[in-house]
């Protein structure tokens, strides 16, 4: 039993979903995603028991590429995030009906497969392939099943595709250069290449282009809000919940260990850029009139903070970043789902057309409130754990940067509560708001339960990721 099984389940799931026909597609996808979740839990238990769950096979001899999948605690944590969110996302979509749903759900499963592969790949080339495969399904999902005016949607989605794709090419160039120096794409070989500071700088920058666009950091973020707005709810959740984390994870896994000198040398620029994103995203979110766009900018602020934490190169920063990646994954999926629940009833994502919902649905209000509070990292929710560690990590680097980044505590509360007030409170809305049904409530309750449980007892995740992060830090600090 090794990690390849998980990938096989997901790939087979994608094919089976595609073949299953429109009627059964969503259910097939759900079954396979649950199987994948079960498999990843089983893998976790094997990993904790100390068994070897890595999969390594020869693939291509020239150039030297191998099928190598490795799972350490960090990768497993992210894989678990992926496979745990997927059934939730799929389940949440049961309230929508999509044309040609077998294609839709097949693409979703394919994307999940690719993302899981990205987290698990130990070979740079393999990693790059998975990285790019993940992009293709979301392109079609957003383009074909998205909402809003087709013309502007096409413009936004094509921009997103070309933008991220172009960014990835810089990473490919870095990989090829590294291959020429190392003669292999394996992580262990790439990280042991002796590079001069100058080389490291360019390689670092190559990776940075790919990641900064995907995360996104300012000023590479302009694709984000529109795509989030136009994509169908499932697409938005996949993008914000998992795909962003792919890039953040890649920074920890690839960029920092390969070019540690550059990472240390230019640390402040990258932290500065990330923190600027935190403030910029929060401020712009204040003025958004569209709920999904507002959430997109809030996401921009949050991932900026995560990236800042990663670039501190401290254990606290990294650990906080990973914790925050996981918690943000859950909370943003929950929030986008809440937006979807509203738009199912009101057929709009414009904040001005909402309001007065609380009086009609107290259940939904409570759930939405908890998600909002988690998003502004109230202590006791999972997000607080990550945010505290992140800010503490930043403090170790520079206290003023930490304070600047900490304004997210204030601004986050500002825009989220303002949004909540406008969306939920006030006099009764004339349009009927049906209370959440079982399907919707179920997904929400699970997300909330996860956020609250790990908010009080994050130790399992901390114990899982810490050894891996320490190893990576040891690699980073090898010079």
């Amino acid at each position, binding site marked *: 039993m090794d990690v390849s099984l998980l990938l096989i389940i997901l790939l087979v799931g994608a094919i089976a979903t595609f073949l299953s026909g429109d009627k059964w597609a969503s259910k097939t996808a759900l079954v396979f995603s649950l199987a994948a979740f079960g498999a990843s839990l089983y893998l976790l238990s094997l990993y904790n028991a100390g068994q070897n769950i890595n999969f390594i096979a020869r693939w291509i001899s020239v150039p030297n590429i191998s099928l190598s999948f490795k799972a350490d605690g960090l990768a497993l944590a992210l894989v678990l995030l992926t496979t745990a969110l997927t059934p939730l996302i799929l389940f949440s979509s049961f309230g929508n009906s999509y044309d040609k749903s077998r294609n839709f759900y097949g693409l979703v499963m394919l994307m999940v497969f690719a993302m899981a592969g990205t987290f698990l790949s130990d070979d740079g080339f393999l990693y790059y392939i998975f990285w790019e495969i993940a992009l293709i399904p979301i392109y079609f999902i957003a383009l074909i099943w998205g909402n809003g005016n087709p013309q502007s949607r096409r413009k936004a989605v094509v*921009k997103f595709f*070309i*933008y991220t794709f172009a960014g990835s090419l810089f990473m490919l160039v870095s990989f090829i250069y590294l291959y020429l120096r190392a003669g292999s794409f394996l992580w262990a070989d790439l990280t042991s290449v002796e590079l001069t500071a100058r080389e490291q700088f360019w390689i670092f920058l190559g990776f940075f282009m790919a990641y900064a666009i995907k995360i996104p950091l*300012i*000023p590479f*973020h*302009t*694709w984000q809000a529109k795509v989030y707005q136009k994509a169908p709810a499932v697409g938005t959740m996949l993008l914000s919940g998992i795909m962003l984390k792919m890039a953040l994870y890649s920074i920890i896994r690839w960029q920092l260990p390969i070019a540690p000198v550059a990472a240390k040398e230019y640390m402040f620029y990258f932290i500065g850029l990330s923190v600027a994103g935190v403030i*910029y995203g929060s*401020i*712009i979110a*204040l*003025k*958004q009139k569209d709920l999904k766009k507002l959430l997109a900018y809030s996401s921009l602020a949050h991932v900026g903070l995560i990236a800042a934490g990663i670039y501190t190169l*401290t*254990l*606290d920063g990294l*650990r906080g970043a990973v914790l925050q990646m996981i918690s943000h994954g859950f909370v943003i999926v929950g929030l986008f789902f809440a937006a979807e629940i509203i738009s199912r009833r009101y057929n709009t994502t414009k904040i001005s057309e909402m309001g*007065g919902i*609380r*009086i009609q649905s107290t259940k939904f209000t*409570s759930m939405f409130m908890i998600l909002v*509070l988690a998003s502004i990292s*109230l*202590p*006791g929710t999972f997000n607080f*754990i990550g945010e*505290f*560690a992140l*800010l*503490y990590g930043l*403090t*170790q680097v520079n*206290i003023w940067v*930490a*304070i600047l980044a*900490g*304004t997210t*505590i*204030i601004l986050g*509360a*500002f825009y989220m*509560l*303002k949004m909540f*007030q406008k969306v939920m*409170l*006030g*006099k*009764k809305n004339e349009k009927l708001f049906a209370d959440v049904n079982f399907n919707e409530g179920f997904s929400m309750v699970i997300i909330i339960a996860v956020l609250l449980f790990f908010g*009080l*007892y*994050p*130790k399992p995740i*901390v114990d899982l990721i*810490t050894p891996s992060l320490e190893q990576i830090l040891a690699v980073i600090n090898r010079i």
Partner: protein
Amino acid sequence: METSLLLTLLLAPFAGFLFNIFFGKKVSRNISGTIGTIAVAVSFIVSLNFFFQINSTKQPILIDLFQWMTLENFNVNFSFLLDQLSVLWLLFVTGIGTLIHIYSISYMHDDENLNKFFAYLNLFIFFMIMLVVGSNLLIMFIGWEGVGLCSYLLIGFWYKNQDYNDAAKKAFIMNRIGDLGFLVGVFILGYLFNSIDFATMKTAIASGQSVDLGWLGFATLCLFIGASGKSAQIPLYTWLPDAMAGPTPVSALIHAATMVTAGIFMITRLNFLFDLTPDVQMIIAVVGAVTSLVAAFIALVQNDIKKVLAYSTVSQLGLMFLALGLGAYEIAVFHVITHAFFKACLFLGSGSVIHALGGEQDMRKMGGLRKYMKVTYITFFIATLAISGIPIFAGFFSKDEILMVAFHENKALWAIASLASIMTAFYMFRLLYLTFFKEFRGTEEQKHHLHESPSLITFPLVVLAILSTVGGFISFPGNSWLNGYLTPIFIGAREEHHLDGTTYMLMGIAVIGALIGIGMAYSNYIKKSQVPSEDSEITGFAKVLYNKFYVDEIYMAVIVKPIYAIASFSKNFIETAISGFVFGLGKVTNIVGNQGKAIQNGSVGFYLFVFVIASASFIAYLFLAQ
């Protein structure tokens, strides 16, 4: 045994919260309220038990549950510390909490969301207990933010009114500004001590571990910013008056007696750190004194009965901070307790009045109520005497001690605080006279409905009035039980102030000052029968005061508006510019492609021509390069 007792203490209100959230709608209104009340009463009984235990053993109880957060150089555990300070706080939080729950059963009886109200109140008590018993800064922070959340939920309890929601949001955000300060303080302390445990830090200081005083000062300053957010001090006080949008029991419980004293609790908790940073203490003292004066000024001319009380709360909190800044922590605690008694009584009394008048809060439309509401009037009168600093009532002792310390440490601060006290006496009696004396100025219909409130409302009033009368004796000048009780929370011995000539002189001055204030109020509102003029007729300095020094407007113009302006600018220009640049790259590619297309004109001859010229120039280059 202690663990399970502590869990009972903590989880009883939480259970009440869960019950009222999930089943509150299904059971009858009285049961919902009763269960909420019992939940808090259970906590009160457990607190009493702990209080007697600690008072006799003098040993703090530390209960460690499980590891919560993991950081590189320290861990944060879910652990709780019950010592003299926390048990004292527990006692009055749960005690007054119980009374206010009882009061609320009747006061909120007709509200459609009664169960939600009790749920939030219970949740508040839960978080408040968490805040008080946490053994490290982060557990305290859970409670700290949690009570902020409950305050948000309860201020905006009548959520259909967006103005109330604005007030709730404002309270939360201003608290968050302070919370950032709190967090930064925690970071620095964690960095300095490799721990954020109160006990560990105290041991470190007591054992003489050397600490970078510069950083420590920064940390205590940040913590003070946190405290000033929660306890409504300059510059973060403006949320508290707005918070009066919430139901009156909420104002009494959260915005007068308990939550707003959290800042004082925190500073007292960390007294050993603040003692090392005298500069920060000075800042605290000055901020406290100035706040007490500014708030007292504003309170002079307010006409909303709850607004007056709100500003008076800000003012009294300022006095407490003055005491903290002067290092007299036990006196600040003393004033917190007496203030909790009389201010809760005042708020609940005002609630009773508002209840009787069907929601009217404007004092210009009250008057003469003592004839109709005997119990409310008497209790209110006692509490007013207490807050004004009339001897034998609770407020006299605590306020007098603050003034005395201020006199010994810094005469200017003493003068400011004394002035604030005189004004307190004036505006409180102004309130009393306008509300209860002379003739009723409301509508006939209201007059017809005037009645004494039911016993569920008057009972807490009576209890609190008694406490406001006798509460001062826990720290009788010269022979203070409280000071002795609190000694273990400090490092080393505390100096006792002895009764001497100066003390009596200061007491005399304070009493005379209070009497002057009362006299002025009497001559204005009883003798001359003045009634405050209509909003539009207010002019001059009074208008500035009436508009609260325009602080809200200034904040709006200096902070909020610019943030929005930046947001608009970013959204409309920067975003467009970046987006335009990215699209521009695409466009450039397009243009280059379109232009380049012309070269591909399809003429084979031309291709050949280019091919030959290019090869020739390439070869020529190779030759020339040699």
